[in-house]
């Protein structure tokens, strides 16, 4: 498999005020070439640190990393032209205009001046180019950061929690952007602590917790695998759940009760309705629930102390379920 990014046993310890904090503990992951790759992990799990190491901003204690086959940070100058990145939040000179900021960055890579206007147009900032960056809304800042990455026409785009703080329209815009970049054959590495986001945009995913890899693969496989033995679930609403449970159990389904509903493990919901109808039980509601994402994620990252963020994960899931 061709990879865009590979890390092997990457490790980083921060020393601050005498205390040591291991942020990344031997992370080995691979980001396949082309498509959107989610980098999922709870707060403080080391996503940003890993991205910084890939970009040569932070020096790893040990382990290796490569981007497009070049060892980084050693050979970063050879590949940096193919990599566009936004780490944590967009960072520009606040007193300069959007245009000035881009002109400087274009100068750093020897990009022609007209590219600046092109990328401003492309990110719908054409008419705000002469405004100071400090007066930009968060969404505009994010767009300017994307404009900056486009100056290079990169093959790999690294976005670190790009939807943080954006309104629904902004989130959607960024997600669509990532998807269309992925569809074009670019590699997009997007970190997130929101499961639903990764589920919506990513083809493949690496899940990390406490600075090391917990799971990696196609999103569908990972999420499927997290359910009961690789099988999806359907939520069944029926007038007499107790009888329905007996019927289904007799036919060999695994199931759990969820208040008035039954959660039935199956990949073929129509078989469930057929079985129940055969016993005179009619299904009032049938919702496929692709593997229980939230519990899968929480199980994988158990003990990470998600705190308030758990709410967001849950909220994101129900969005996903409704679609």
């Amino acid at each position, binding site marked *: 498999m061709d990879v865009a990014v590979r890390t092997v046993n990457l490790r980083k310890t*921060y020393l601050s005020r005498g205390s040591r904090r291991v942020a990344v503990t031997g992370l080995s992951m691979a980001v396949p070439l082309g498509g959107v790759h989610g980098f999922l992990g709870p707060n403080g799990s080391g996503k940003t640190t890993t991205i*910084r190491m890939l*970009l*040569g*901003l*932070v*020096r790893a204690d040990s382990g290796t990393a490569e981007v497009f086959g070049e060892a980084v940070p050693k050979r*970063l*100058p050879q590949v*940096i*032209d*193919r*990599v*566009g*990145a936004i*780490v944590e*939040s967009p*960072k*520009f*000179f606040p*007193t*300069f205009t959007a245009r*000035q*900021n881009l*002109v*400087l*960055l*274009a*100068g*750093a*890579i*020897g*990009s*022609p001046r*007209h*590219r600046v206007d*092109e*990328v401003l*147009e*492309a*990110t*719908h900032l054409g008419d705000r180019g002469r405004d100071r960056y400090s007066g930009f809304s968060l969404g505009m800042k994010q*767009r300017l950061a*994307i*404009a*900056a990455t*486009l*100056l*290079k*026409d990169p093959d790999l785009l690294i976005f670190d929690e790009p939807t943080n703080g954006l309104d629904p*329209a902004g989130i*959607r*815009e*960024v997600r*669509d*952007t990532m*998807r*269309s*970049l992925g569809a*074009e054959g670019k590699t997009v590495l997007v970190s997130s602590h929101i499961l639903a986001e990764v589920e919506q945009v990513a083809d493949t995913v690496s899940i990390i917790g406490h600075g090391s890899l917990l799971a990696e693969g196609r999103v569908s496989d990972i999420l499927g695998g997290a359910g009961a033995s690789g099988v999806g679930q359907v939520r069944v609403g029926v007038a007499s759940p107790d009888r329905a449970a007996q019927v289904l159990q007799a036919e060999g389904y695994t199931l759990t009760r969820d208040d008035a509903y039954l959660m039935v493990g199956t990949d073929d919901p129509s078989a469930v309705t057929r079985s129940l109808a055969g016993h005179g039980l009619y299904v009032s509601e049938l919702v496929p629930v692709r593997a229980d994402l939230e519990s899968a994620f929480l199980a994988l990252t158990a003990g990470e102390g998600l705190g308030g963020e758990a709410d967001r994960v849950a909220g994101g899931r129900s969005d996903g379920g409704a679609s």
Partner: protein
Amino acid sequence: MSETLVSPDSRPRTERRPKGTSFAGLVGVELRRLWWRRLTKAAVVAVVLFTGAMVYNAYTASAPERLAQQLDDFRTMTQQAPQMLEECKKQEAMERDRSGDPAVDFGCDQQQTPTLEDMGLVLPVADVITEGIAKVGALLLAFVALLLGASFVGAEFSTGSMGTWLTFAPRRLQVASSKLTAAALAGAGIALLGLVLGNLGARMVAVVNRPGDDLVLPDPAQLTDPLALLGLRVVALAVGAGLIGAALALLLRHTAAIIGVVLGYAVVVEGIAVQSFLQGRLQRWSVLHNIEAFVEKGSTYFAESCTDARCEYTQHTITYTQGWVFLLGVVVAIVAVGLVAFRRRDVS
């Protein structure tokens, strides 16, 4: 379908992907950023104001009416001089008698003959006025250059844009060198601006304050050192200060921290420690003394030296050579430390 941020026309029209830029290109970009900064404009205004103030000062000090007044005072003084010398000698003799030490010296001979030149009562000549402005202004220009260099790089850390920058130009040493170069050039620019304005001002003062025939004054002594060389040294000092400012920013990452360190050093080390420890002998290694030695081609300081019986203050010289070697050493050391720190450390 909602719009994405990457429409097909956002692809570069040039087929070739940009391949980075040269060191000179990076310096060019840094200079452009420097030019756009508000602090640069403020620094230019400050230099204009300060030079203006010094020119104004030279103008009032060499106004013909004032010179005439001083000339009067001087004449009165020279008339009294013999009496004062006599008085001094008398005091000296009394002291010798009292202490029984014939070596007591009141230095009466030195007060003997003040000349018009000693009193600064000379024709206002542009070069001489410029020299004065350059010598007084050297430190201030250097300080402005240091501030400019420090905030030029410090702002990149405080706004976080250093991280963004490094994802475009990842060669740390090259990046740091381009910033240092820009800061050095900024220092040179600031110094040149001050010197040129000072010289223009001095020429104007010399013309405006040329005394009438009624006021006869001697020409000032010839400058021992060509003005152009003095100017070069003032520029070099500002270049060094700009480099130090930028290098300290690479090291400390906060403009405020640098100002604190520099002012703290000036007050605590230069102002207090150097004077009070080792009977003042540390002054040989004081930055300010060495700056003076460099700019004015030599500097002196007094240090106490004690023999068994008594202590006395003796005058020591810091040579021009020591001055420039010392300062060059300081600049090289700080720049080296800044480069090493920036190359190794994490940038967030």
